[in-house]
């Protein structure tokens, strides 16, 4: 039910996007011609592509295809065309200045119940970091809380970075519940992994559906008692066990033994687990692949930053991919969400195939968070998040020339570009004393 409801939100957002977006431009039909397009993540290369898009989505991608009447043409000769990229973890839109600035809504450290946190109440579509991020080709993001009172850190959402209202930006809300079980979480939740896990297990046992009958099919004693109605966080935990489309549990863990606990959790409770952080995941890549657990990592991490991160290596992404694990990328932090593209390039430099790294920025992220029917490729009917790059997008000296989000071209303007334009020629007073 939950997923169906949130998908409806997504469809509603697409319909609304047909009217007007924050950029103030009207939706239009656009033909991006002459570029090299990658229609399916890093695959599906189409030379001299005619990419037809409209506010209702991708129309077609055909090599040398004709431009229908009424389409505005964007010349992409010599350029690269991809789906807009997605960061698989951030707090985009939840805070402006992290240190001694305004309130940072991502840090819900005084929350009464960490499980019920909903980003919709915190998301600010006018947050300046969003514009800084989208003009660098990142059009989608997972946004979530960074902290709560304990290690249950709220419900995350998928946002598109082009909307001017919360309803338009959040395409899918409550797409996962975040649970932190790393070394830091253990320290502040019982002081020991054993204390922390005891609490986690207790909560999951309480939420787990109770069998209606015993093994012999006999009614259990007390079954006539009406079960107490669950509320708040306890009610949300029940969704982890829902039939059909259960709420995924995103688990942050780094040490191999902690990661294996997450694998056990999936097996024991039959819940859907997404592993994040995961510095040492590459050491159990085969087990993760066998358990069908996708992994979100920052591919640059290669220092033993903590005792649960000793085996950190920037070869992680390549190794996980080679073992068949579905990988998506975390940026260094929210302000630097746009640098996820550079991180992906570095993953390639460390042995990940280029196609797989671009998959990680698009289709993999879409599939991991259950939005792949909507976003992630340039297939007909997908939302038109399309970026025209002036070269290989993973390179550090390239950047977008055009960014479309849900069919709308986003002006390449931000607070930063306005400051740049103001100071490009320094307004030096003529009488300045040296």
């Amino acid at each position, binding site marked *: 039910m939950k997923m169906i409801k949130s998908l409806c939100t997504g469809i509603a957002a697409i319909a609304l996007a047909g009217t007007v977006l924050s950029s103030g431009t009207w939706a239009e039909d656009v033909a991006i011609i002459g570029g090299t397009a990658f229609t399916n993540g890093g695959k599906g290369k189409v030379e001299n592509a005619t990419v037809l898009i409209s506010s209702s989505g991708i129309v077609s991608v055909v090599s040398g295809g004709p431009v229908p009447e009424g389409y505005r043409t964007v010349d992409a000769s010599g350029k690269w065309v991809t789906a807009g990229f997605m960061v698989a973890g951030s707090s985009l839109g939840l805070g402006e200045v992290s240190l001694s600035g305004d309130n940072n809504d991502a840090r819900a450290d005084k929350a009464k119940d960490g499980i019920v946190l909903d980003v919709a109440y915190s998301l600010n579509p006018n947050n300046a970091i969003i514009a800084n991020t989208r003009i660098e080709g990142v059009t989608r993001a997972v946004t979530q809380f960074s902290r709560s009172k304990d290690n249950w850190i709220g419900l995350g959402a998928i946002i598109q970075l082009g909307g001017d209202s919360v309803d338009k930006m959040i395409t899918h809300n409550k797409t996962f519940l975040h649970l932190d079980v790393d070394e830091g979480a253990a320290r502040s939740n019982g002081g020991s992994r054993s204390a922390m896990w005891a609490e986690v297990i207790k909560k999951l046992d309480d939420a787990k559906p109770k069998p209606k009958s015993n093994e012999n099919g006999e009614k259990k004693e007390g079954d006539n008692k009406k079960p107490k109605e669950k509320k708040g966080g306890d009610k949300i935990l029940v969704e982890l066990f829902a039939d059909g489309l259960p709420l995924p549990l995103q688990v942050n863990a780094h040490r191999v033994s902690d990661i294996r606990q997450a694998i056990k959790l999936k097996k024991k409770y039959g819940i859907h687990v997404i592993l994040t952080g995961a510095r040492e995941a590459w050491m159990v890549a085969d087990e993760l692949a066998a358990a069908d657990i996708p992994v979100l990592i920052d591919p640059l991490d290669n220092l033993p930053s903590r005792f649960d991160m000793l085996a950190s290596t*920037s070869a992680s992404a390549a190794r996980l991919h080679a073992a068949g694990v579905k990988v998506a990328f975390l940026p260094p932090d929210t302000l630097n969400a746009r640098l996820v593209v550079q991180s992906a390039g570095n993953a390639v*430099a460390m042995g990940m195939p280029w196609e797989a790294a671009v998959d990680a920025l698009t289709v993999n992220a879409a599939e991991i968070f259950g939005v792949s029917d909507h976003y992630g490729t340039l297939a007909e009917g997908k939302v038109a998040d399309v970026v025209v790059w002036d070269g290989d997008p993973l390179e550090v000296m390239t950047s977008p020339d055009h960014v479309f989000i849900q069919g709308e071209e986003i002006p390449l303007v931000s607070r*930063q570009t306005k400051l740049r334009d103001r100071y490009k020629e320094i307004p030096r007073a003529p009488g300045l004393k040296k």
Partner: protein
Amino acid sequence: MKKRMMLTGTGARSAMLATVLTTVLVACGPSDTAQDGFVDINRDPFPSSYTPLASETTLIVNATVLDGKGGMIEGGSVLMDGGKIKQVGTDITAPDGTRVIDASGRWVTPGIIDVHSHLGVYASPGTQSHSDGNEVGDPVTAGVWAEHSLWPQDPGFGRAAAGGVTAMQLLPGSANLVGGRSVTIKNVPGRVAQDMKFPDAPYGMKMACGENPKRVYGGGNNNVLARPSTRMGNVHGYRQAWADAQDYQRRWNKYERDYAAGKDVLPPKRNLRLDTLAGVLRGEIKVHMHCYRADDMGTMLDVMKEFNYQIASFQHAVESYKIADKLADNGVCSAMWADWYGFKMEAYDGIRENIPFVHKAGACAIVHSDSSSGIQRLNQEAAKALADGRKVGVDISKADAWQWLSLNPAKSLGIDGMTGTLEAGKNADVVLWSADPFSVYAKADMTFVDGAVVHDRADPSKQRVADFELGHVGEGDVK
């Protein structure tokens, strides 16, 4: 006179001593009253014990060479011998027994110098026990020295070598108005800090503008001198510190004059904090000041003139683009990130074109890291800044841009006479890149410090494994 023998000074210092010595000799006569030995301050009590690693004569051929001072040579060669650059050009004949490396398709540059690192002082793993970079409790801690916190076993040093970093400045943090002395090191393995110290590199001193000191000390209920809680309180603190240092220096000058005149005088009491500050006023120690906002930097340019010292660099300097002309006029370098911004109010106006705009104004631009992760990819930071500048019409060549990574950092640290470019006679601090280092896909194939290999991507025995990493998961792995 005996005490004087322990002196080891820089050139300027030795010259000054010679003057004093002559005066003393003239003044020494049979009619003089007895004098205690002349008391002088040993300016180098923790001398470098750096010894170059074994190197072999090496000739790199067929490379694209960036000489680090704006030149680019296609099909270039670089000859290293005895730890020095011997020759750079296109047609170099190597002596017999030279190791010849064919670098077809590859690039050679001077080693990267990071002017802002906390490796060793905030080491990995980042446990509380390794938090050795900020001596909080007093806003002016000029008497602390980063080298006394330096843990040579930080695994970050090896990672930085794999990123082509051959030297770096290790700084105290920015909690204090004056954080203490920095140390410039060569990126070589060391058992003790002194093994890594860059011989003859001048000391630096860390200062900090703006939010950090006022946040750390800003209780608000205390004497402003003891606890700055505002920017104006910060500036009061710097100025009083300089005034104290001037007074201290005058007392020493008077002691030296009186001693030279044959008087039996008591030297001033040593004050380790004022030793460092006075060293700046004498021009021996370089100031590197953490400063984000243009107006904060503008204030400090006047404090600098008031007390007659030179700021070598503003660190982070996210608003240098607003006052790049003034920075050029005042000869102050800006050490900058390519695109970090916004994490606090004073970083809020960061723009991606800061570095190329500073360069365009004729000011000294430096790419720095302040990060154990960022230090591994400074070439990529320069590449991003270069591309962002070009996109808005600031045309800078890759050869010129490399100055942000080697020559300009070397200048700000006062070691450009020894390193920072590929010129005959300079230290052979060199990186051989697998490809154009302005590409995300390029890796440092080999890093040389004084001609010795400190990192070789093809040879696991030349990939550093810190003591800490031994016996742990991931030991000796590709990093």
